[in-house]
């Protein structure tokens, strides 16, 4: 894997590995190339894989930013603004090189659609930029559908032996659409229909329900901030009113806001703002504080829900 980086602006290969040895060999080769080129580098992968890469690099690991993706990228919706653009924007001179592993065995069925959409949206977020992002996939432990989707979201594919090929099925928009799935509140959800006059009341309702379901401490503030943002969006952009539903499932609090609007920008909430720029931080804040954000949008309306661990 040596030549593509110089030809195209944005390079986004998927690496399909089957063993720890393949993983280490290919990621270290990728980073060594960056070292030779003098490129700023970051590695955001699950903890055990971080250790494999660090061990493989030895002394060369110095100067590389290492992040545990299970924390930094717990919510896949914040990986683009916070992890990838966070690093790329901090190094505007020349090409930057990143390893990002957002999908690992153990990602839940609720998380996966947002993970696949994230992988697809990387292509839109970095189009034309001198950035290389290698995404490793565990071919043995991940579901075959995950591997199939990765071939649609990555223009370049790399085998465990380092053989590189062009994906014949690359079509990231198709994956964004496929995982734009209808969301249905849990049967035991409590709901609150709101208009603009009710914004303080719906926030209070969310807080009371979150406390009833066992949320405490700082995360209550995050619930209030995130619900305020989503309900305000409904009032300002989503037809003037909406419905909040709150429930708990699998040890997580879920808050869902439904309105009549349509989300036309697939990168909404994932574009970092300049420090002095007004607006555009609301949905990004929801991505930053939540453990997961799921979105469904169609001509019939938009549903945004966020999950926070209890």
């Amino acid at each position, binding site marked *: 894997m040596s030549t593509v980086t110089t030809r195209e602006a944005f390079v986004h290969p998927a690496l399909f590995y089957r063993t720890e040895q393949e993983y280490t060999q290919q990621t270290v080769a990728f980073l060594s190339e960056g070292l030779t080129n003098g490129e700023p580098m970051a590695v955001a992968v699950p903890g055990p894989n971080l250790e494999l890469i660090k061990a493989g690099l030895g002394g060369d690991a110095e100067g590389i930013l290492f992040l545990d993706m299970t924390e930094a990228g717990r919510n896949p919706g914040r990986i683009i603004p916070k992890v990838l653009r966070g690093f790329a924007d901090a190094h505007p001179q020349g090409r930057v090189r990143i390893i990002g592993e957002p999908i690992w065995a153990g990602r839940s069925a609720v998380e996966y659609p947002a993970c696949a959409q994230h992988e697809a949206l990387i292509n839109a977020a970095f189009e034309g930029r001198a950035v290389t992002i290698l995404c490793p996939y565990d071919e043995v432990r991940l579901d075959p559908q995950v591997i199939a989707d990765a071939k649609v979201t990555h223009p370049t594919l790399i085998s465990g032996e380092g053989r590189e090929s062009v994906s014949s099925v690359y079509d990231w928009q198709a994956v964004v659409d496929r995982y734009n799935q209808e969301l249905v509140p849990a049967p035991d959800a409590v709901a609150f229909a709101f208009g603009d006059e009710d*914004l303080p009341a719906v926030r209070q309702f969310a807080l009371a329900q979150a406390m009833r379901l066992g949320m405490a401490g700082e995360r209550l*503030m995050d619930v209030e901030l995130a619900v305020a943002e989503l309900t305000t969006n409904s009032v300002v952009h989503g037809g003037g009113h909406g419905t909040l539903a709150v429930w708990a499932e699998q040890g997580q609090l879920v808050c869902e806001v439904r309105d009549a609007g349509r989300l036309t920008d697939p990168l909404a909430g994932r574009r970092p703002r300049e420090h002095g720029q007004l*607006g555009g931080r609301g949905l990004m804040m929801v991505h930053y504080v939540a453990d997961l954000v799921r979105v469904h949008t169609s001509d019939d309306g938009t549903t945004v829900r966020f999950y926070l661990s209890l």
Partner: protein
Amino acid sequence: MDVPHAVGGPAPVESGRAALEVSPLPGRAGIRARGEISVLTRPSWEQALSELARRHAGVSYVELSDVAFVDVAGVTALAITAMNLPDGRVVVENPPPQLPRVLEMFWPGLDRIEVASR
């Protein structure tokens, strides 16, 4: 803004209705706000901040102990006001907890704002 004014409903602030009163701080440069800072009270907050910027000399104070909630756009307006000041800083006193949380998220290390916490 020499007299208190309210937006979104008549004073006094009632719970459940969004209102914001802003008045000058007695004896110091700056403002005191009461109510909540959200989309419903945005014009009043932004007007108060531009007035604060216009009168700013060195240090301005923003007293928020009677503000129960501020949203991301409200913190953004304050941060941008502070960044655009020619010099000095804004001291925010007793803000609701969302304010330092959002400042840290989007403007970490912004030295134009000093938060004196509750």
